[in-house]
């Protein structure tokens, strides 16, 4: 009788409509993660080499494929963007763009992880499962149309990443980086939550569309609560995007974490942070642009300067790249600060080309570091051009792209964000960005010089470097993208232009 009563009540609950096609990329990634766990628990013998990595890459490819179908749907003039799951998720060009970026991050990092895990005797499905789930969290963040969902996505992304950072638990550095990342990450998401509570208190809603509608329709008498909320939200997003002054974890965690995980952290996790930042600030809080723009201006300047200057004094290549990824975050913030459609599209272009550059860079670091993941000093790269000419050339392409040399995607990315800043009349910021780009060029050239111009006689030869198939494919793809988009950027620019985030009220 009680059961009948329960069922009678259940019928009254209106379940929200879920658009399965729109959530397909998410479901594919989560489904693949569960499939990997199932396979590993049901099979007694070890599956063929690389099975787990292949499943992960296929899942990401499928996710990108379904995203392509969605893209046709949301960019169709008649149908356009829409929300699903009771206004919790937005499906627009922006969401689809980030589904592609994050899935690419998963696929490329999984290709790097394949050989790494075997080399370190850690082979198993766990890292791939965490990677897929963490990426799904990042996609939720990019699609979120509600601050609750932003928070859930962020935590799914982060909790999996804490474990991934400490994955190589026999290495003391890996354990230490997990500890540091966890403490600071939990601390910053607590700040983010406090900020969300403030925004909720000031506007009476957590739905981004409703918040934007409220802010457009009403003039707040006391803006203290709202502005406090902005500042606290910026702490949370700034931490994930490793913007100064919330960057202190970045060098330690990037250095200590297993290198393929670092690649994932620098690509997918950073992309997700910028996705949430763009949707929440640029689109939702557009009405209060004049209040938050100065904050982002300050953070962007600090990030650009600290990232490029501190990178120079490092001797560990992974640490150098950590600081250089901080300065890249500064460049993306230059696009965010412009708060125009042009700025957003420039930031999106930057995120996509940066994903390939940084995964490639850490991919080379994975290979050069050798067994034990310990050769990360500059001396490990001495004379690499003689031992491995192809690898040295690949690395040079990534470094030049990061420095912003023409004919690479990195140059155009920097060009577009600075152009957006100039068009938004942020001349000082554009100038600082250009100067910091010059300063950081020194750092990249230092590594190139070590690879090409060091006389190997007298010095002991560095560790032997071999290039396994999976990592070779990942590096090849990254180089191809960096060079081809550097010469023919039109298509990618066209995509970025049509991926401006829209904020829809929950009613639609």
């Amino acid at each position, binding site marked *: 009788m009680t059961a009948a009563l329960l069922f009678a009540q259940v019928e009254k609950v209106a379940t929200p409509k879920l658009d399965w096609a729109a959530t397909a990329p998410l479901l594919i990634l989560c489904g693949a993660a569960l499939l990997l766990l199932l396979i590993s628990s049901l099979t007694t013998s070890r599956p063929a080499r690389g099975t787990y990595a292949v499943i992960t890459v296929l899942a990401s490819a499928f996710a990108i494929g379904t995203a392509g179908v969605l893209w046709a749907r949301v960019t169709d003039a008649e149908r356009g963007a829409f929300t699903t799951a009771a206004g919790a998720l937005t499906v627009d060009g922006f969401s689809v763009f980030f589904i592609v970026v994050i899935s690419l991050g998963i696929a490329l990092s999984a290709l790097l992880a394949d050989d790494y895990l075997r080399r370190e005797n850690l082979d198993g499905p766990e890292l791939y499962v965490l990677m897929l789930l963490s990426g799904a969290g990042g996609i939720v963040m990019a699609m979120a149309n509600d601050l609750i969902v932003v*928070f859930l996505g962020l935590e799914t992304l982060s909790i999996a990443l804490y474990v991934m950072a400490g994955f190589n638990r026999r290495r003391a550095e890996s354990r230490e980086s997990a500890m540091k990342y966890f403490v600071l990450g939990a601390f910053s998401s607590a700040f983010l939550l*406090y900020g969300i509570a403030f925004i909720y208190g000031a506007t009476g809603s957590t739905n981004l569309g409703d918040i934007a509608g409220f802010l457009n329709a009403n003039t707040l008498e006391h803006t203290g609560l709202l502005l406090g909320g902005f500042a606290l939200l910026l702490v949370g997003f700034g931490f994930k995007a490793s913007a100064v002054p919330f960057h202190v974890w970045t060098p330690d965690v990037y250095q200590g974490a297993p290198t393929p995980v670092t690649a994932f952290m620098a690509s997918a996790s950073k992309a997700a942070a910028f996705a949430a930042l763009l949707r929440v600030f640029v689109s939702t809080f557009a009405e209060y642009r004049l209040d938050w723009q100065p904050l982002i201006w300050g953070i962007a300047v600090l990030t650009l300067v600290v990232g490029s200057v501190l990178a120079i004094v490092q001797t560990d290549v992974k640490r150098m790249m950590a600081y250089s990824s901080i300065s890249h975050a500064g460049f993306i913030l230059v696009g965010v600060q412009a708060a125009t459609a042009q700025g957003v599209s420039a930031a999106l272009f930057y995120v996509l080309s940066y994903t390939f550059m940084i995964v490639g860079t850490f991919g080379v670091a994975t290979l050069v570091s050798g067994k034990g993941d310990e050769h990360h000093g500059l001396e490990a790269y001495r004379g690499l051009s003689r031992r491995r000419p192809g690898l040295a050339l690949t690395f040079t392409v990534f470094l030049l792209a990061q420095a912003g040399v023409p004919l690479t995607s990195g140059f155009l990315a920097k060009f577009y964000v600075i152009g957006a800043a100039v068009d938004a009349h942020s001349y000082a910021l554009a100038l600082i960005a250009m100067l910091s780009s010059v300063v950081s060029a020194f750092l990249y050239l230092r590594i190139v010089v070590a690879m090409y111009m060091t006389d190997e006689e007298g010095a002991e030869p560095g560790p032997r470097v071999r290039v396994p198939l999976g990592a070779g494919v990942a590096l090849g793809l990254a180089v191809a993208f960096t060079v081809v988009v550097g010469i023919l950027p039109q298509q990618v620019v066209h995509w970025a232009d049509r991926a401006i985030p829209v904020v829809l009220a929950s009613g639609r």
Partner: protein
Amino acid sequence: MLLNQFLLLGAVLFCIGVYGVLARKNGVLVLMSIELILNSVNINLVAFGMMGGDAAAITGQVFALFVITVAAAEVGVGLAIVLLIYRNRTTVDLDEVDLMKG
């Protein structure tokens, strides 16, 4: 006014939590301080929800439930990491976890 008392309680808890994270060296106590901050958020959410209409109240309370759930998951992972450090170094003092610097 009723709302301010709750917000004040939330702010005090938040400050105690932040102080705890910054001043404590013991990993477990840092975790507990983070929990304090999350609980201050919950108080704020429920208080703000009470102030608005029915729909807003549900949002605040549901959000608080989500926060509690996520906090549990986070502490699960956090304690595992603290345990990993403890097994290797027989200490949970965060100041001694300092292999990487610069």
